[in-house]
């Protein structure tokens, strides 16, 4: 039996058990991660998992069942269990569930990959991390760490509407960090970002990062931070580096525009959203420099795919245009509830999890300036870069973020280093204060976005460039 045959059998079993719609995903994933610490390999993890997840709609209730067994009998049993589970949902029923039409058909897609990351010898990959962490250690890092991760995912999707889609997505990335330990304080510098940089690309992504070339600098900066002055407290002009902007977009825009949150489907855990659908198309989210897109078609970005996990073809869409909120991340059922005619943002983190609304690539279109121009145009402010901590309320309004490092900006020049920088604010107030935006955009990858119950880890992308904000509260401390 082919994987399509297995998925088809599961869908048919769900229909036979009473489902009015069903879909099934067979997934096979190989994962490899290596970490090094202080010049030695610390851990190598290699895993393989395969299974099938079946989703069934009975009346207004969904049911989902998954097993790591790709036999015909197991697939049929999973389809039947999914339909029975859906039937139990009728004990606490909701309004009728519809699915926004997206067109059904056959399709095939694969991410671009120049160098298959799983075919690169382990010894070469180990040498890369050992060399980088050894260099950091030699430059004074108390703890020098390096990590790469590789995901190689194949999936076959079949639905009762006639979808028949296969995809092969290869993702990888890497990063290093130096930790310096002082008296009662720990400082860290990472490259190229906290946890590294990731994309739907091959090992060429890691080679381009050139980890070794940045190892000494991270160690030097981590040690220097231990004796740097504290980030002052108060309101000031804030310039954020591109990687921190990616985090800012992820937390205060990406999650806020998830339609399931807006509809209250995540109310008890991830939370809701401050956005109200009645304001879609009119709400003033940010300054006119703010243009946010939802775009899973960006080559190499971590949130890219050919089809989402409901079989909707990838398509670019505006979320915020010249500061006005105009679009959401949606799935077929949530779109139907909201009366929208588009979906395409539903994914699961594996065969054993229910697909749900997730960010794809949610990013900020580049602006007209450069980072250097922003600093030159700032009389008194702070430049922060590289995310260290993030916390935001359940409506995605009230945030407090910390970065690894900051610099004073005085009279148009970057000045002394500052330690323990934090800034806090309210999402729309903050975005409306953005008055300069750089053209130096990078599609940052976030491989650790948590959501859902049971918990799922999503991979998202965020094109972002440095930007400047006015009247921001900084230096919040315990």
């Amino acid at each position, binding site marked *: 039996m082919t994987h399509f045959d297995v998925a088809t059998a599961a869908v048919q079993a769900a229909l036979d058990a009473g489902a009015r719609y069903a879909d099934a995903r067979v997934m096979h994933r190989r994962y490899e991660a290596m970490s090094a610490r202080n010049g030695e390999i610390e851990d190598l993890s290699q895993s393989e998992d395969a299974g099938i997840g079946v989703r069934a709609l009975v009346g207004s209730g969904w049911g989902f069942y998954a097993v790591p067994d790709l036999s015909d009998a197991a697939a049929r049993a999973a389809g039947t269990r999914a339909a029975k589970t859906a039937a139990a949902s009728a004990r606490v029923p*909701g309004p009728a569930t519809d699915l926004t039409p997206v067109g059904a058909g056959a399709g095939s897609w694969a991410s671009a990959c120049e160098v298959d990351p799983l075919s690169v010898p382990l010894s070469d990959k180990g040498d890369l991390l050992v060399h980088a962490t050894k260099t950091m250690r030699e430059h004074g890092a108390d*703890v020098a760490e390096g990590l790469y991760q590789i995901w190689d995912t194949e999936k076959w999707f079949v639905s009762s509407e006639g979808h028949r889609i296969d995809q092969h997505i290869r993702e990888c990335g890497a990063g290093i960090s130096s930790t310096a330990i002082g008296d009662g304080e*720990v400082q860290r510098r990472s490259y190229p970002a906290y946890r590294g940089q990731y994309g739907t690309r091959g090992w060429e992504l890691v080679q381009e990062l050139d980890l070794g070339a940045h190892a000494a600098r991270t160690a030097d900066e981590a040690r220097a931070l231990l004796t740097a002055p504290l980030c002052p407290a108060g309101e000031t002009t804030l310039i954020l580096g591109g990687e921190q902007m990616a985090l800012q977009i992820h937390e205060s825009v990406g999650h806020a525009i998830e339609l399931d949150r807006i509809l209250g489907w995540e*109310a008890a855990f991830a939370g809701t959203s401050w956005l109200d659908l009645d304001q879609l198309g009119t709400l003033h989210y940010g300054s006119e420099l703010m243009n946010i897109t939802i775009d899973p078609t960006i080559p190499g970005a971590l949130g890219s795919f050919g089809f989402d996990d409901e079989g909707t073809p990838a398509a670019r869409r505006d979320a915020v245009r010249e500061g006005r909120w105009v679009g959401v991340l949606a799935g077929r059922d949530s779109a139907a509830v909201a009366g929208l005619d588009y979906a395409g943002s539903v994914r699961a983190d594996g065969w054993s999890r229910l697909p749900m609304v997730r960010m794809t690539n949610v990013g900020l279109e580049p602006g007209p300036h450069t980072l250097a121009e922003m600093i030159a145009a700032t009389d008194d402010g702070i430049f922060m870069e590289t995310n260290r901590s993030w916390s935001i309320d359940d409506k995605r309004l009230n945030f*407090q973020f910390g970065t690894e490092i900051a610099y004073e900006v005085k009279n148009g020049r970057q000045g002394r280093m500052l330690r323990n920088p934090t800034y806090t604010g309210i999402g729309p107030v903050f975005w409306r204060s953005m008055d300069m935006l750089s053209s130096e955009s990078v599609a940052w990858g976030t491989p650790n976005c948590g959501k859902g119950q049971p918990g799922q880890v999503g991979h998202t992308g965020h094109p972002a460039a440095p930007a400047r904000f006015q009247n921001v509260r900084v230096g*919040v401390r315990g």
Partner: protein
Amino acid sequence: MRDIAHRVLSMVGPGVEAEVFVGHTALALTRFANSSIHQNVADATTSVRLRLHADGRTASGSTTVTTDEGLAGLVRRTREATRLLPPDAGWPGLAPLAPLAGEGNWDEATAQAAPDARADRVRAFVDAAGGLETAGYCRTMHAAGAFANSAGQSVTGRTAEVAMDAIARLDGADGLGRLASGRLSEVDGAVLGARAAAKARASAGAVELPPGRYEVVLEAPAVADLLQNFALYGFNGKSYNERRSFAEPGAEQFDHAITLVDDTLGAGGLGLPFDAEGTPKRRVAFVSGGVTESVAHDRRTAAEAGAESTAHALPSGGAFGAIPASMRLDPGPATGEAAELGAVVDPAAAALVAGVERGLLVTDLWYTRVLDPKSLVVTGLTRNGVWLIEDGEITTPVRNFRFTQSYPQALAPGAVLGVGAEVTTVPDGWGAAWRTTPALRLASWNFTGGASG
């Protein structure tokens, strides 16, 4: 599963140190929002993890493909990896033969709970909320594990869990009901729904108070967040070895009222009776009467520290260190009859509230992140209900705060003004850890921002 474990060991062959962990998890979760079930899921997964040490080199791998071909592939890949990796000077050796100290919790009714059993609890929660909007989940789970290594250690175990975690909402104000147990019969959706609804109703008209330092009573869900961060950062053996933890064994770092243990096999404990390296679980005291006693170790971090493993190796390997999963903060002495304070305050916290002249009652903490791991300064927000306490009475609902607070400092000597006499077991969101704790009355908590910034 024991058969799979020994089959893999036999495939590895002689001359190699090998350990195999076979885990089977059946998880079912019925999720509701807007007072109806909208996601209803279940899965059953068996995974096999193999770790090999050969010629001084170590590698590990895992698979969910348990056919002969799949298992042979796991052994082949892992064996190849050991040849390519550099020498592992810190290899701590395999766990020695040792009997289990207990069987762990098991309840057949919990393990075999059908979708209808979960849906019935959801129905009861929704009905008890009396028309308020509700959202949350009811989860049942059972896990079984078999471990075997080439040193002769071979153990099996199983565990079952039920958890309910849900809110009731009124005009945007939320009230919470959250509980985990080893027995399905102990989770009553109606009780949790009624409490959540009472809290939501009592939050109507919440006012914004200025940020600053307040005396607080933290209910069990809020205290669980302190325990969670202590587990991840403070008592993690890897963090301790790297001097990134505040923990100093032998030092009086906490108030004398604080005794903190990890106890999978004790009353209310959940989880398998051995860790991922086959070391039998036992009670481990991290803090006794305010004095830090120890940290959690797997075999590698223990060897580095010159200590014994405390059976806290994680199935995912040692990259995150050794983390306790079943922590318990011991309750305080009973103070006689609990104060009657209405439905807002959990009965377990009522006696603590009665002693507060002016302070805040906090139900839950949310989205907490560490700003500095060494001092364990954490920022986050309150959630699911905050009230002003004046002269021992709950007087006014309060809007949520942002806080920035060192967790060890909050429990430092002299800072703990009261420990509740009853404990509650609280689940984490991932079904991998549980925190059993009473409410706490603390002298000071640093609120650094109001709801509006």
